[in-house]
């Protein structure tokens, strides 16, 4: 008796969804096992997570905390569809935070921009900053054939250090008692100043972006070209698609959305810029993009789920006295199980006698 792998030619939606569901449940069981192995009660941990998603106040918090990762993940859905392996969402988030903060400081320090235009300018600036930062490695790929995986990864650290430089240097709050933080954003530069909660602005925004992305990918020529490029670059070249231009446009949008994620962090969650403001949101966004199968619509609930894990992490930290790492274990097991599920979607395992 032996096992044989057979490549599936196509897979029904139903089977694909049930494989995903099965492996997510498996992930929760695996994470629970890890917790039990370390002598942590998995029942208590899971009940904290359940509590987060069933209490309105914490659920709203989960939506908000999921937004930065959600925007970045929306961008990644596009990038990965083009077969552009952007590992640099974290860096693009940092660039978005930097640009948004820069606009606030330009207004607060020099009065350069009229007050009502500050928030729109922040949105535009963070989108452009994140987009250009992502288009840089895309340009190297299009022009010189430099593989994008390591450059995007490396640029994360460059962005992080550069924000550190600004925050420890010229952008440090003069009244901040020497702490490395920017000034607190004034009301007109904050997302929660409109409807009372940042999530009330951000989540509809994310839905709109998902709709636009879905339309772009499924209904427009550009979107079609992006998908062809991702699936078969030779066919795309043969069909006369201008690869460089398509890649640059796509990467601008992908990075720009991560930049918007950065805007949500500084303007919607912490209300100022500080070092380490994105503790790996860009990496979690990769997990979200995969969990949603690169479908923009599914990326939204997935980001709420991961936002909820972050909130649960805070609860677990304060009540069970466990480090943030507990959340990372959940993230990683879910990630591993999703990619394991990916294997079973691609291959059929047969027992041969």
């Amino acid at each position, binding site marked *: 008796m032996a096992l044989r792998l057979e490549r599936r030619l196509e897979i029904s939606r139903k089977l694909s969804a049930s494989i995903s569901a099965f492996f997510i449940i498996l992930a929760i069981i695996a994470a629970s096992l*890890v917790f039990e192995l*370390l*002598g*942590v009660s998995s029942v208590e941990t899971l009940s904290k997570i359940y509590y987060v998603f069933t209490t309105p106040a914490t659920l709203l918090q989960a939506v908000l905390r999921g937004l930065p990762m959600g925007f970045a993940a929306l961008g990644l859905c596009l990038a990965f569809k083009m077969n552009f*392996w952007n*590992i640099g969402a974290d860096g693009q988030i940092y660039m978005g935070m930097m640009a948004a903060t820069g606009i606030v400081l330009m207004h607060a320090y020099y009065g350069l921009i009229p007050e009502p235009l500050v928030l729109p300018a922040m949105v535009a600036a963070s989108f452009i900053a994140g987009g250009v930062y992502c288009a840089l*490695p895309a340009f*190297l790929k299009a022009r*010189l*054939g*430099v*593989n994008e*995986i*390591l*450059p995007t*990864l*490396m*640029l994360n*650290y*460059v962005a992080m*250090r*550069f924000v*550190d*430089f600004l925050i*420890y*240097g010229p952008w440090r709050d003069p009244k901040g008692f020497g702490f490395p933080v920017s000034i607190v954003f004034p009301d007109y530069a904050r997302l929660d100043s409109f409807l009372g909660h940042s999530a009330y602005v951000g989540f509809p925004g994310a839905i709109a972006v998902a709709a636009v992305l879905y339309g772009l990918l499924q209904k427009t020529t550009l979107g079609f070209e992006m998908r062809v490029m991702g699936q078969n670059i030779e066919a795309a070249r043969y069909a006369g698609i201008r690869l460089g231009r398509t890649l640059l446009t796509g990467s601008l949008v992908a990075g720009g959305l991560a930049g918007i994620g950065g805007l949500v962090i500084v303007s919607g969650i912490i209300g100022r810029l500080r070092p380490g403001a994105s503790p*790996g949101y860009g*990496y979690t966004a*990769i*997990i979200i993009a*995969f969990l949603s199968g690169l479908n923009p619509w599914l990326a939204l609930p997935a980001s709420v789920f991961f936002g909820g894990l972050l909130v649960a992490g805070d609860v677990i930290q304060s009540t069970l*006295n*466990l*480090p*943030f*790492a*507990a*959340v*990372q*274990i*959940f*993230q*990683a*097991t879910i*990630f*591993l199980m999703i*990619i*394991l599920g*990916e*294997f079973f979607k691609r291959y059929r395992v047969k027992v041969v006698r």
Partner: protein
Amino acid sequence: MIDVGWISSVLAGAVSAGTVFLIASLGEMYAERAGVLNLGMEGMMIIGAAVAFIFTNALGHGAALLAVVLIGLVLGVSHAVFSVSLKLNQVVVGLAFTILGLGVSGLITAAEIRKRFILALNPETPERLVITQEAAKLPVIPIPVLKDIPVIGPVFFNHNVLVYFAFTLSVVMWFVLFRTRFGLSLRSCGENPSMADSLGVNVYRMRYISMAICGMLGSLAGAYLFIGYQPFWVEGMTAGRGFISLALVILATWSPLRAILGALLFGGVETLQFRLPLLGVAAQLPQFLLMLPYIVTIITLTLLSLESVRKRVGAPAALGIPYTRE
């Protein structure tokens, strides 16, 4: 100020700091030469550091190094199960291992859990070692005679055993890679796996072996970081060093000998970030200094992708592509 003494102490610091990168990049190099890109290096490193932390306080250095190497072996082989046998995307598998490593290392070193581990390993452990965030550093073993050579002596021959091990290992690994049959087979798996297969090389086995080596050295690099370089536990203390090791592999263009030079360069950068502010050189400089390894890597990668260069020292052609036997 800047004199011979200062320079030689900076160089000695570069050797200490660079050894972390050197050990890890030697492992990564073998994995990549065989065709597997291991983005999980950061996770393997931090687990190595965490295991070294717990085992050193419970049982001492010898047991710690043994445990670290075994854990690394397990990590490397399990990466290979996903990336070689199941043929899953190596970028995704690697990132999952990195996140898993950060999570597991954070959890096993949390005060309560660590205490349970240490007492299970050695019930006699004194209370002091159970609660401390530190561990005993590996002893410095100056090499007689050689250490008295001016400048070179204190720079290279006044370190702990892992530093000597790392530098010796680079030479050995270079020899194995370029001067033995095994090395030739290993490289062929990264350049042209189907050709290697047709010539009788077991590509899967080679990739498993190289990932095992990569896992062991990755964890060992983490252990060195903790008990050989800065023995004070901070959650996430590798702080991107695993990724810098990936950068070093590129800078060294996949050669174990050139990795020594790159490790000294990156180690020097890390040392200077603490030394320069002491001299009163612009306080903001460290952040730009710390960007240097990443920027240098991107430039190197760009140069390596030029047609004329790629033919001579480029990346293994089949890097990152899972092999399927037809």
